[in-house]
């Protein structure tokens, strides 16, 4: 039987291929994700290992708690005097001190800082270019001396920096001019994507980084025969309390910790989108298989009459599905390699360059990608498979026999359904509540519970009731996950994922009931939308296509044809290429293009749209499943768009609130809008003529109540420059924090039982601890607080934090915002290319621009699932055309033109797409509203523009999906179509 299944697949190549594409794309996404993240992982790993290659031990400053990246505070430094002590140790062969900074800007020839998205700008000292500790090699020039810099090859090439040239460099202080002494690269040849490297000699680096007399690290090499552990023990004995020592390899691991976190986040994030694409793909497969099976009724019946058992029929369907699953998964696996390259490009394009040292293809990638693809295909084929077993042998002799009932009818019943659903809910709920996805067993239990719940909902004799139960359970899971406190991120995500899945399933099922009215409703919309779009496309595509074809082989005088050809080429040169290929094909083969072609019109015939809309309604289940696939993609896109609109609206509101009734005119931030910048920049800005008041906001991590939290610090001028809503206290608090006062936000005060007058003990990264007094409690604006949980005065902050940095600075100027003030500020910041002055609206726009980059990535990733659903529509239409061959032949025979046939199919396609879009958009907004209701700092805002764009996109999806099936239908020869058996 298995052999026949494969033969069957081969005889339906097109249909099989269309079904498989859905899986191919999903698997490609999963495999691509693994390849991408593994590649980044490897690139980083080799860089970090490289950096520590020569070191047996590394001494560094020890922060009191783990610090994040770019948070405004750094680990305490070491004193330079430690270095000779280390060198004097008996087992130490060599030791060298270094300083570094991850905000060392190189200034390009255009006067702007060289930045690439969020990539770091690394600055460091090279005490001795020839030492074993130096991971770099010279490409050109010599190791840097005083006031010289060595630059990495990529940056040098990109910015046209040459050895001997003088360029600007800015770290903690203002810009300094230094000479480029060398172009360097890592000894291994690897590059950190987008990052810039700037190496200095030690004294220059110490001056630039404001670490004179200090060291960040001491690298140590042991004498021969001394083990790393021995060396570490020896060093530990002489270390001061705020320093630590690790072996070289340990240090490499610790260096990599942050990037590893980032990589696993990226991996989970991308895998989620692969999962979504596969989920959508499962709808496409289930639908395609169901249709194919309905069309093969007679084949199955014949097999039954010659002795095939139910189980053999089921087996052959499952084998077919498995073969498709295996082949599609293998194709997807390798397509993933291409996709990984594509993702590198995508991230690069949105300014988020990832390091790449060649693609890594792990066995794990193969196993997971194949397993996921095959499993999804298998699960999607179970129901259609059982449906095939319902074919009675008598269908072999009856004309037009249709499938009797559904396989579930045998066990269908409200009580059975309720029981199965309940068991599913209990099992799934238990699995998620007790051990959230930690072990394989609980993961399997959760999946089992979900499956049982879905199955139970499908068992209800009333389809509508089952759908309602599914939706209700889904929303219950969503609400539970969102609103029950202290569930932990994993559980919240699991509840939400399960909830969304159940809702999708329920909506998809109930849609079947709604299809007739939805299709009737959408028909005129589809007709006019297509008309409007075609009016736009007509002069660009259809008209030139017709003209070119007329020019190439139409009848008529040569002059007329040349004119048509030239006109067509001018209107759209792209189509010229297509017609050229057709012309060549005609010249080289016996192929004859269809001519005379109808002159392209745009107004859809009322009669054809009528038949098209009836066609969309005549098999509601089919239309519903096809639309459901698109619905999922659009629901997620809309969810994202609505959330983004909410975030933007809230943020705008928050900034306006803060700025209302205050004197601030300008804000200063880093060029990338979020990195903390040296306070020298704000100090320079304060010198600009016309500045009335300056308020800095410093930021960094501190520890309080055994938690690492974000703290901020403000200048006393905050009283005039921003307006806070106070729960307890007044604007005066801002001016009078002094050396021991703090204010806290409302939520933090509540969760730690703080009131005005309460003491609060803060531990800083350096390990220093001090107790402060709460002076006020404020109510942070919806849309985001400008402050951390705890805020102290800049004076108190600077006393505890070395090299403090500003997150942003607000400035009040005489004459408010005007051109001369803007120029004055810009001039004063000339030495700080990484800082920029902006007005309130610019500040809002800039802060939001980061979100747009993230949004664009999300849209591109979700587009994948929309593409999968597009193939779903193509597939359904192709199968439908195949099924209606005889009917289309009849329509042609009684006078329907080819164009009318195409219009008919197109109309059906657009209606399906519009139904999917309508359901998806509504669902997306509902889900977003639910999320926004949960998150305190978000307000709901309807993304009107985006929704209009999505609807147009859906119509375009419908149009594109119809192209191929419509052409096939139009090509059918009326006579053959009728004679078709």
């Amino acid at each position, binding site marked *: 039987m298995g052999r*026949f299944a494969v033969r069957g697949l081969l*005889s339906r190549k097109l249909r099989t291929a269309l079904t498989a594409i859905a899986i191919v794309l999903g698997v490609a996404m999963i495999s691509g994700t693994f390849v991408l993240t593994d590649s980044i992982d490897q690139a980083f790993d080799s860089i970090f290992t490289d950096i520590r290659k020569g070191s047996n031990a590394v001494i560094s400053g020890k922060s009191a708690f783990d610090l994040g990246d770019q948070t405004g505070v750094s680990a305490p430094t070491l004193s330079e005097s430690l270095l000779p002590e280390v060198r004097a140790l008996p087992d130490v062969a060599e030791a060298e001190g270094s300083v570094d900074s991850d905000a060392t800007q190189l200034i390009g020839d255009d006067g702007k800082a060289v930045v690439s998205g969020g990539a770091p700008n690394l600055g460091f000292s090279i005490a001795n270019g020839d030492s074993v500790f130096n991971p770099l090699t010279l490409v050109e020039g010599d190791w840097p001396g005083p006031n010289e810099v060595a630059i990495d090859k990529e940056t040098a090439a990109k910015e046209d920096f040459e050895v001997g040239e003088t360029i600007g460099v800015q770290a903690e202080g203002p810009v300094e001019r230094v000479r480029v002494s060398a172009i360097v690269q890592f000894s291994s040849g690897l590059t950190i994507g987008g990052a810039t490297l700037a190496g200095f000699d030690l004294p220059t680096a110490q001056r630039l980084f404001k670490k004179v007399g200090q060291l960040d690290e001491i690298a140590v090499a042991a004498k021969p025969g001394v083990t790393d552990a021995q060396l570490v023990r020896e060093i530990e004995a002489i270390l001061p309390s705020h320093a630590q020592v690790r072996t070289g390899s340990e240090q490499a691991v610790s260096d990599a910790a942050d990037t590893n976190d980032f990589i696993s986040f990226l991996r989970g994030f991308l895998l989620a989108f692969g999962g979504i694409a596969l989920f959508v793909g499962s709808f496409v497969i289930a639908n395609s298989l169901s249709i194919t099976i309905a069309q093969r009724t007679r084949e199955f019946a014949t*097999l039954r*009459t010659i*002795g095939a*058992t*139910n189980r053999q029929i089921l087996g052959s369907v499952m084998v077919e599905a498995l073969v498709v699953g295996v082949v599609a998964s293998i194709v997807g696996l390798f397509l993933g390699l291409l996709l990984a390259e594509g993702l590198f490009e995508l991230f690069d394009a949105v300014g988020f360059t990832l390091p790449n040292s060649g693609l890594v293809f792990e066995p794990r990638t193969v196993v997971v990608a194949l397993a996921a693809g095959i499993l999804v295909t298998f699960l999607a084929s179970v129901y259609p498979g059982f449906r095939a077993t319902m074919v009675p*042998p008598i269908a*072999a*002799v009856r004309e037009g026999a249709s499938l009797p009932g559904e396989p579930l009818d045998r066990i269908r019943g409200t009580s059975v359904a309720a029981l199965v659903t309940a068991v599913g809910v209990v099992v799934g709920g238990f699995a998620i509540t007790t051990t959230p996805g930690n072990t394989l067993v609980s993961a399997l239990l959760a999946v089992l519970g979900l499956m049982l719940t879905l199955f139970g909902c499908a068992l209800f004799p009333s389809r509508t009731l089952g759908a309602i139960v599914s939706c209700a359970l889904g929303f219950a899971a969503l609400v539970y996950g969102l609103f029950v406190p202290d569930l932990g991120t994993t559980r919240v995500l699991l509840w939400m994922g399960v909830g969304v899945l159940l809702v999708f399933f329920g909506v998809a099922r109930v849609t079947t009931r709604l299809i007739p009215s939805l299709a009737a409703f959408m028909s005129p919309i589809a007709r006019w939308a297509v008309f409007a779009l075609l009016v736009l496309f007509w002069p660009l595509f259809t008209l030139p296509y017709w003209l070119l074809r007329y020019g190439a082989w139409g009848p008529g005088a040569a002059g007329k044809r040349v004119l048509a050809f030239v006109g067509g080429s001018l209107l759209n040169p792209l189509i010229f290429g297509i017609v050229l290929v057709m012309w060549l094909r005609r010249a080289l083969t016996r192929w004859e293009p269809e001519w005379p072609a109808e002159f392209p019109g745009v107004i859809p015939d009322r009669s054809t749209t009528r038949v098209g809309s009836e066609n969309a309604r005549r098999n509601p289940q089919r239309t519903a499943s096809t639309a459901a696939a698109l619905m999922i993609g659009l629901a997620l896109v809309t969810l994202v768009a609505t959330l983004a609109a909410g975030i933007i609206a809230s943020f705008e509101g928050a900034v306006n609130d803060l700025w209302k009734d205050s004197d601030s005119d300008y804000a200063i931030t880093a060029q990338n809008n979020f990195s903390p910048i040296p306070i020298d920049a704000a100090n320079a800005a304060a010198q600009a003529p016309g500045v009335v008041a300056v308020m800095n906001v410093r930021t960094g991590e501190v520890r309080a109540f055994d938690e690492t939290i974000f703290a901020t610090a403000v200048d006393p001028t905050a009283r005039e420059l921003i307006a806070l809503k106070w729960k307890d206290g007044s604007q005066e608090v801002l001016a009078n924090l002094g050396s021991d006062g703090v204010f806290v936000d409302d939520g933090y005060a509540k969760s730690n039982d703080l009131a005005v007058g309460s003491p609060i003990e803060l531990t800083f990264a350096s390990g220093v601890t001090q107790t402060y007094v709460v002076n006020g409690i404020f109510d942070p604006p919806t849309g985001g607080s400008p402050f951390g949980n705890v805020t102290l005065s800049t004076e108190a902050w600077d006393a505890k934090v070395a090299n403090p940095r500003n997150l942003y600075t607000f400035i009040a100027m005489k004459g408010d915002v005007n051109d001369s003030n803007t120029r004055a500020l810009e001039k004063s910041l000339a030495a700080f290319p990484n800082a920029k002055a902006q007005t309130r609206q610019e500040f809002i726009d800039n802060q939001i621009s980061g979100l747009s980059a993230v949004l664009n990535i999300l849209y591109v990733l979700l587009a994948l699932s929309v593409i999968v659903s597009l193939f779903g529509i193509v597939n359904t239409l192709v199968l439908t055309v195949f099924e209606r061959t005889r009917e289309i032949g009849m329509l042609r025979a009684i006078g329907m033109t080819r164009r009318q046939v195409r219009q008919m199919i197109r109309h059906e396609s657009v209606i399906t797409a519009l139904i999917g879009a309508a359901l998806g958009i509504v669902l997306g907004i509902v889900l977003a509203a639910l999320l926004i209701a949960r998150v305190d700092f978000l307000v709901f805002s309807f993304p009107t523009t985006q929704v209009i764009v999505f609807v147009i996109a859906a119509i375009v999806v419908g149009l594109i999906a119809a192209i191929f099936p419509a052409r096939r239908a139009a090509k059918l020869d009326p006579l053959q179509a009728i004679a078709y058996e």
Partner: protein
Amino acid sequence: MSESHDGAVVVAQDVTRRYGEGETAVDALRGVSVDIAPGKATAVMGPSGSGKSTLMHILAGLDKPTSGTVGIAGTEITTLGDNDLTKLRREHIGFVFQFFNLLPMLDAKENILLPLTIAGEKPDDGWLDQLVDDVGLKDRLSHRPAELSGGQQQRVAIARALISRPTVLFADEPTGNLDSATSAEILELLRRSVAEYGQTIVMVTHDSRAAAVAHRVLFLADGEIVRELGECDAHTIHTVMEELAAA
């Protein structure tokens, strides 16, 4: 089965079949009893709507009677479950259809061997060769159905029905989709299978020349057997059919 049906391989007693319920109910069969003798060809004839197809479907176990019993090779089939019925089909029943019902993706040989493949049995090579010779498909074995003429397709279908040496072969309008010359060849093939292999055949047809190859012709009208003829020529059968149509 009971002794009164000595040697019969298919026995039907008081078979009725009612489609639908209430006022719209249609009685396709109203108490038909029939014995099919082994090694003979039986033709079932009748005008459209006479119930001849329903009778064959019920005799072959494709459809269940509303009342009455049907036995094949001594097994009462109206009460059999799906699995037992399938097993019965493998051992005792062969089918030939009006529209051939070949699997398009398999070649002629694979189509012929399909019943054995499904049952997981090894083909008897001698029997296969003989069968292929007899149906005249020797040089067509590697062709797909789409590459065969209608007559050749029906030959494949007949070979497929005979390959498992079924107790009884049911043919549903076997010439209904063929021209008269091809029909004659197919009928000759069916006749020879009775004569040479002793194959039992039940054939539903409204082609009197087809019925003429049978040893026995049953005439149905309005769900009842109204006439029965022994071996006779096409003209006689045609006359009876005319009479029935006129009645």
